[in-house]
């Protein structure tokens, strides 16, 4: 197979685009497309300051690399979750994020969950019943809270995450299976800024996961290859595998599913009745918005865990922001 642009041997074939490219042209194509999506969805402007949430994985590091190459003012945020599980998962992820930043002279903020809450994620999760034995729910809650806190406290205009199309389609698939209209309403490339909530954007939302892996490999980005030990057997991975089987039979199916959804949303297919829209309250402890009066879910989690360190406690999920719940990368 030959590169469509120069005729050299292709490094990657993307059947959904009927496009094959060599290494050099693929490495040009990805940033060009990213720029196109940034503009198409009005994600941010040149003069705005961007905080990129990096996990040490291929997607978030590639996103940071691309934004840096495109000349955007993009700093990184790494949230140290304290996941070890015998493979030093968090320690290695942090090392890779720090190495990436140092090699390019970029600024990386690091937030340590244990320092902020008193416990690493697996312990926080064990101390609550949220997530039914899996720490993913607590992890998502803590990451969302901390990402928003840092973005606001440090005056960033926008928070960028490395969600790729496969991430988005897996969430869309799950939300469609359950007809979770409240989540469908808020899924998209941009989650606009609201009082107390930073704008969130997903510049890689139209790239297949395979393309982002290829980008990281061809660009020589060292990323954490091992999956988060707690993600093994997760619903999102099962959905991704299912959708890849569909893609294999019908190239372009994932992209079409996502783009058709965005179009339907644009046409107000999932219009929210005015009366359903909940008024947001401000958490008296951290000042971030919450759907119920009183402490937000994060502050309730931290205060209860700190006040009863030896007990298992239940934190009901009162907040519902309708955003995706995948990991940072």
């Amino acid at each position, binding site marked *: 197979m030959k590169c469509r642009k120069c005729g050299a041997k292709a490094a990657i074939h993307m059947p959904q685009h009927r496009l094959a490219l060599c290494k050099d042209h693929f490495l040009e194509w990805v940033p060009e497309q990213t720029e196109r999506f940034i503009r198409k969805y009005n994600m941010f402007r040149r003069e705005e300051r961007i905080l990129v949430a990096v996990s040490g994985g291929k997607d978030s590091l590639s996103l940071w690399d691309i934004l840096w190459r495109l000349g955007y003012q993009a700093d990184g945020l790494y949230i140290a979750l304290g996941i070890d599980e015998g493979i030093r998962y968090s320690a290695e992820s942090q090392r890779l994020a720090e190495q990436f930043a140092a090699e390019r002279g970029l600024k990386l903020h690091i937030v340590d969950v244990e320092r902020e809450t008193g416990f690493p994620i697996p312990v926080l999760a064990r101390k609550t019943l949220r997530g*039914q034995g899996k720490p*993913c729910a607590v992890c998502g809650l803590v990451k969302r809270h901390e990402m928003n806190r840092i973005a606001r406290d440090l005056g960033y205009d926008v928070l960028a995450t490395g969600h790729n199309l*496969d991430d988005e389609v897996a969430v869309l698939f799950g939300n469609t299976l359950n007809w979770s209209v409240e989540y469908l309403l808020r899924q998209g490339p941009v989650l606009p800024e609201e009082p107390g909530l930073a704008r969130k954007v997903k510049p890689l939302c139209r790239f297949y996961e395979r393309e982002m*892996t290829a980008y990281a490999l061809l660009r020589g980005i060292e990323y954490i290859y091992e999956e988060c030990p707690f993600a093994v057997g997760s619903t*999102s991975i099962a959905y991704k595998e299912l959708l*890849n089987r569909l893609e294999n039979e019908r190239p372009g199916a994932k992209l079409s599913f996502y783009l058709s959804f965005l179009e339907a949303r644009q046409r107000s297919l999932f219009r929210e009745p005015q009366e359903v829209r909940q008024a947001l309250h401000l958490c008296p402890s951290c000042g971030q918005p919450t759907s119920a009066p009183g402490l937000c879910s994060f502050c309730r989690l931290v205060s209860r865990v700190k006040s009863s360190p030896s007990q298992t406690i239940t934190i009901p999920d009162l907040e519902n922001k309708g955003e995706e719940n995948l*990991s940072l990368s």
Partner: protein
Amino acid sequence: MVKSFPMTAKLILRNREYEVKSGQTLRSALKEAGILPESVIATRQGEMITEDEMVREGDVIKLIAVISGGIEEGR
């Protein structure tokens, strides 16, 4: 008596080895091993290769899994 050896190549994915017939395309070899092309990137001698490449006898093709991510269960 001449002993014949099958013409084979090896695919490696996450420390697991799959022996496949050589002389077929990578796409066919992946199918033989039950691996979806969409879920991997294939490299041979450190270079990425496309699914139409022929798998040669003795090839060792390293497959890099592309799927990552966890989700909050039940959300």
